[in-house]
């Protein structure tokens, strides 16, 4: 027991000394964990931004973007976060309702986005499309629309994520909603025999898919780029649905309670720089919202680009989210 | 006559082996004395068939038992403890000596009633065994010996856990049963008094060999 206490005291001491290093301002950014991983975008962004501005950038990774928001809510006024980064437009509205976020006052009209998005508080920094990924060597004739997906033979299986715990899962629900409207429930009934399993998060779903458990998995159009660039595997493809794919625009916002408002605003501006745009594709595996001289990595040219990005307005999503999820639950056998 | 000739048992470590020879008429009781670990219990295991001997023979009158499997040998065995199924009634415990079917037939049930009277347990027919005293429990075990009517009875220190009065009573009961049912009884014990009271012959383990005293 004494040893425990000693160790705890030691930890306490170490962490307080670490915090007291100089008067350099520290910009604290809460985000999801795959962003902060050593192979993620955060380390490079930190380095680039610290070169430009005299400060420390501290990324705090939480298990999901929603988790990061919840953490800020739990911390309330005492939160150390200056910026929340990583929500998508469907959930940003939830964050807006908390009243914790400040207006950004940036001009976002020049950003390259397949849809128009403007919000007083949240600024986009990258986007991607949801898509069903498959292995070309195993699946010769992939379904080419939501309709075709639900009409595949009986033993055709897909994996999706639970919309109650994963933004990817929620994305598919909204996708189906924006294509089928009031008939979404019927669609889910038709699709449900093809759903092998519904996982808590993206990682379990993708892991099962890579083990060959399902023919397709709900992921992003950019997923094959990872396999091409990091693993030199070219057999992973996404099915292109002509009516368009539901999109995910990732956004960030400054907290009202932040003591580094000016620095935080500089970071939001930095998100729209070429430097930032060059980091995003191969670390966060998404499209940047600024055209750069360097352009996208060549592997990205091989990716399917959907004809249209479907996106339901955030306010509408927030109004109907419970209803949409319940509709899905009912169709799947409640 | 029970004739056991040069029955030999070699221990697993192959370093020492025991040899047993003994003759026994019906209605007779043999007492076997010896230190613990001297090979007394091994003898009972051999006679009962739980262990196999490397040489020698066991014969009952004209019947050769040496190669017979345990359940076919005409033997009833009684241990110091664990002779009964504590969660069952007295009646069921005795019945298990003859009938393995779950449903009792009336003939057997009547027989059990008679035998329980003999051992003085008629009031306890439907009592669970775990509720009886140690002496009463051994009586139930003896009742089972009676119902089985097997010509050989092996006793492995059956009464050493009981108080003196009960023990003497039990020994007398064994003697009565042996004589009335024409049984060959072999009793392993560490108490010479037991032998003095009822044994017709006394054997002892000496240098790994069974020797008559």
């Amino acid at each position, binding site marked *: 027991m004494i040893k425990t206490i000693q*160790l705890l005291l030691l930890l306490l001491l170490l962490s307080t000394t670490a915090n007291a290093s100089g008067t350099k301002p520290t910009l604290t950014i809460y985000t999801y964990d795959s962003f902060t991983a*050593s192979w993620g975008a955060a380390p490079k962004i930190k380095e680039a931004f610290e070169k430009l501005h005299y400060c420390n950038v501290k990324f705090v990774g939480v298990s999901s973007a929603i988790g990061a928001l919840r953490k800020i809510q739990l911390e309330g006024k005492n939160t150390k976060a200056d910026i929340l980064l990583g929500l998508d437009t469907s959930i940003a509205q939830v964050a807006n309702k908390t009243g914790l976020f400040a207006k950004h006052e940036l001009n976002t009209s020049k950003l390259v986005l397949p849809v128009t998005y403007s919000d007083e508080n949240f600024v986009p920094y990258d986007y991607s499309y949801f898509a069903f990924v498959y292995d070309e060597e195993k699946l010769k004739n992939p379904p080419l629309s939501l309709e075709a997906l639900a009409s595949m033979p009986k033993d055709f299986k897909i994996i999706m994520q639970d919309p109650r715990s994963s933004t990817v899962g929620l994305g598919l629900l909204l996708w189906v909603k924006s294509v089928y409207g009031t008939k979404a429930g019927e669609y889910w009934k038709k699709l449900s025999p093809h759903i092998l399993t519904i996982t808590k998060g993206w990682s379990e779903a993708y892991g099962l898919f*890579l083990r060959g458990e399902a023919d397709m998995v709900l992921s992003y159009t950019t997923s094959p780029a990872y396999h091409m660039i990091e693993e030199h595997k070219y057999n992973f493809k996404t099915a292109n649905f002509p009516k368009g794919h539901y999109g995910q625009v990732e956004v960030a916002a400054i907290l009202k309670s932040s003591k580094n408002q000016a620095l935080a605003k500089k970071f939001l501006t930095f998100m729209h720089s070429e430097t930032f745009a060059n980091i995003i594709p191969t670390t966060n595996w998404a499209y940047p919202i600024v055209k750069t001289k360097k352009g996208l990595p060549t592997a990205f040219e091989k990716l399917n680009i959907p004809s249209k990005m479907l996106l339901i307005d955030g306010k509408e999503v927030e109004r109907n989210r419970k209803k949409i999820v319940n509709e899905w639950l009912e169709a*799947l056998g*409640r | 006559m029970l004739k056991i000739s040069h029955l030999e048992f070699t221990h697993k470590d192959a370093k020492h082996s025991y040899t047993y020879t003994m003759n026994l008429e019906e209605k007779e009781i043999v007492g076997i004395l010896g230190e613990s670990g001297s090979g007394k219990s091994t003898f009972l295991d051999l006679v009962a068939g739980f262990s196999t001997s490397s040489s020698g023979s066991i014969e009952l009158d004209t019947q050769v038992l040496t190669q017979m499997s*345990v359940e*076919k040998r005409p033997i009833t065995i009684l241990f110091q403890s664990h002779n009964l*199924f504590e969660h069952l009634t007295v009646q069921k415990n005795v019945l298990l000596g003859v009938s393995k079917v779950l449903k009792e037939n009336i003939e057997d049930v009547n027989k059990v009633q008679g035998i329980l009277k003999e051992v003085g347990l008629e009031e306890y027919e439907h009592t669970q065994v775990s509720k009886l005293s140690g002496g009463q429990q051994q009586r139930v075990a003896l009742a089972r010996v009676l119902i089985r009517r097997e010509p050989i009875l092996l006793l492995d220190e059956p009464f050493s856990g009981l108080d003196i009065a009960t023990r003497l009573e039990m020994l007398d009961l064994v003697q009565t049963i042996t004589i009335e049912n024409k049984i060959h009884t072999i009793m392993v014990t560490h108490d010479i008094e037991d032998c003095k009271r009822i044994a017709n012959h006394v054997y002892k383990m000496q240098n790994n060999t069974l020797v008559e005293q």
Partner: protein
Amino acid sequence: MFKNYQRIKFSLLPGTLISLTLLTFAFVLFYTLYTSQENLVFTQIEPRVWLLLKFTVYQAFLSTLFSLVVGMLLAWSLAHQAKFRGRSWLVALFSSSLVLPTLIVVFGLITVLGRNGWVNQVSLYLFDYSFGAYLYGLGGILVAHVYLNASFASRSLLHSFESIPKEKYKLAKSLNFTTFQRFMYVEWPVLKPTLLSIASTIFLLCFTSFAIVLVLGGSPAYNTLEVAIYEAVKLDFDIAMALKLALIQLGLTTLLVVFSANFRTHISNLKTATQAIAWEEKREVKYLQRGIIFLFTLFFILPLFAIVVDGLGADFSKILQEKLFIKSFFTSMGLATLSSIITLLFAILLSDAKRNLSLRYRLEDLPFSKLFNIVLSFSGNLYLAIPSLIMGLGFFLLSQRYEAPLALWSTVALLTANVLMSLPFAQSVLAPAMQRTAQRYDRLVFSLNLTKIQRWVYVEYPYLKSSLGYVFALAFCFSLGDLGMIALFGSDEFSTLPWYLYQLMGSYRSSDASGVALILLVITLSAFIFLPKLFGGNHVKD
């Protein structure tokens, strides 16, 4: 005797204090959650939640039933097939199922039994037939639960089988019992009490099962109450609802803990018997028993083997150089060591207080000793019933209220969670063992007037060391594999191996993930096998 009485009375204090701390802590957790929202509105529980509850009970019931049946068959076979090479090794391996990291096991099972698993591939190759996706849905949940719990049940049941006096078998044999009668009259009465208490443990474990249900459940129709709590906290941020659900779960499981008459898991580390049962099995029975052992061994080992096969493909030189891996490794090992030391200490003190109160010649005649004893057991077992998410949330709110560096809070939270998680198991191993030493040696110890230290050195330690080693290993492995609390506190600065593994899985790095999974599996198994040896070799015979 009066002096002893005083001495014992005083020794109640530490155990009681710990027990009170545990209870207070549970209360503080709930109270913190309750007061965290300024105006807590208790929203109506949706009818969906009741359906979830119904399913949770249903799947837990079925899982328990199947685990017991399979565990019983396995234990029966092992008890009667006492002589084959590798038996003791196999039995030790089976008992490790309790501490294997669930997420890893699930992926191992999928590699073997999944839609594209080995079984289906072999069958497709040989008979051109695939069994399809049978592993998902209720079936999958049951398979995984049976995998983890049947082997655990078989270990405890085997111990019961071996406690049956050999005379009983001789008697049954000479009375010419059939195999069935032998089971009914000789074995069943001994197994029944063990079975009941294992059943309640397995039921609790399955009731609160989370990772398995989420990956293999298939459809939201097969979700458990824990999932609903997760939803309430994470997505809806409806803390009132989460509290309500947690209380429902707590209420139900508490009922179970109380009514299963003193939660006892019957887990034990006792060596398997060397003396075989003198009963040459009939040929058919022998083949049946060997078949059961063979099939279950295959079922148990293949998924572990799959993890090894998956993992060997990874680039270990890269993994081992990764800074975050090294950090996670040391954090995990440090936490596991600390939490197993604390668990051991707590379990000893609680069990000591417990035996003082339940032994006649100690303090059993103290007023309220029975009630006191129930409170002691309850406080140790309480945390089996509190969802880790609720515990994590409570900790998080506490960390907000009382400011300290995150690393400190994370350490405290993880340590607490791990200790609380291991304590019920630790106590169930130690309490009966310590009770027995007291029963056996108290008179001697008191008459020689040994001091507490002498008592420990000469009596308790030699007798208990194998149990202590086992408890230590158990707590160590539990802590090593935990992915509950860390999900809320984990970050790049504070990461454990399972957390790191989960992060790798979440970033396309499946090959690295397999490698880390293998490392975690190897560490867990070796800790489970070798740690008990630290406490000294030979076990003092019962």
